[in-house]
């Protein structure tokens, strides 16, 4: 989906796509909620 590949042909460093970042951030938030650091999210 996201096409955030590095444009440089010589660059071999691993880069996360938008999908990867979204999953990582969401899981990190879920963990913070689970261990109680985020304990109340208003809406």
């Amino acid at each position: 989906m996201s096409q955030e590949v590095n444009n440089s042909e010589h660059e071999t460093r691993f880069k996360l796509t938008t999908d990867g970042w979204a999953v990582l951030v969401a899981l990190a938030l879920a963990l913070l909620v689970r261990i109680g650091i985020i304990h109340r999210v208003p809406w």
Partner: protein
Amino acid sequence: MAQGSLVLPRIQTLRPASKLLQLVPGVLLLAAIGWLGKFIEQSVNAYAKAHHLHVPNIEYVLWAILLGLAFSNTVGIPALFQPGVATYEFFLKTGIVLLGARFLLGDVLKLGGVSLGLVVLELAVAFTLMTFLGKWFGLKPKLTTLLAVGSAVCGVSAIIATKGAIDADDEDSSYAIAAILALGAIALFTFPLIGHWLHLSDRAYGLWAGLAVDNTAEASAAGALYSDAAGKVAVLAKTTRNAMIGFVVLGYAIYWASQGQAKRIEGKLSFLWQKFPKFVLGFLLVSVLASVSFFSKEQIGNLANLSRWAFLLTFAGVGLRTNFKELKAQGLRPFAVGAIGEIAIAVVTLGMVLVAAKVFLL
């Protein structure tokens, strides 16, 4: 669901900290517009209640989209804000992964199973119809392919993925993206009205929006405009559709390669994995965790609210990235093919959903 052609700055050769800083103004703009939409909804409701007025409840979703549209089509989006505004796709996917907490695995399997059956039917209808219409209107075959993929699977990201796989022109993909975005904007305003008119249940409406509205952001917004529960189902149905992208792109890539007009695909399994939307796996993981009581009831409520905040920023982004002048400049014929095809797909999928709602008691 993917990055459109309209607001897509590329950030290169910058340090990670500078890249992050570049995102701040646009993300703040998304947050401000989203929050303002929520504030207006609450203020209107409070005013109506205090004065005993009966006004229709206009959801924050619509306010956020309208404010975004007004901003981008009058002031325009200054360059300073563009990198951050383009992150709406990240917030969309984060919101979807977190939404997994509101689905028990049983619901995912049941609704996802129904969705999958309907998606396969929808794909067959969309491909047949778009191919026929493309030929009838004399569009270039690759442009027809892009429009068919965009309307059958998942909008902009499907078009971008297919463009690379079948070596289509930039011009063709811009046409197809513009048509899909314009039609998505129209669907946002028409689908909820039709749903209310037909008194569809939240689940039936959500399934319909997820099946017939092309871009994930627009499908989520069209669902949420109806109700919170419908928004949830729309995201699930749309996510099921997104999961098909790899197979569809691979099918077209093989077809165009057999015509000698695209490169052959080596390693079909890795191609499928590469095109598979990974956030779907995150969504399933969070749903599994919620199903095995990894989270308490209160924690699930918190995760649901985090998901709502992420969607709020997404909806602001939907309005901000839609520029009518740019869409108009793309020409009428691809739009006409897209519009006729989309109306037909919307009618057929509505029929399918009504039957499924009766059979599966949705």
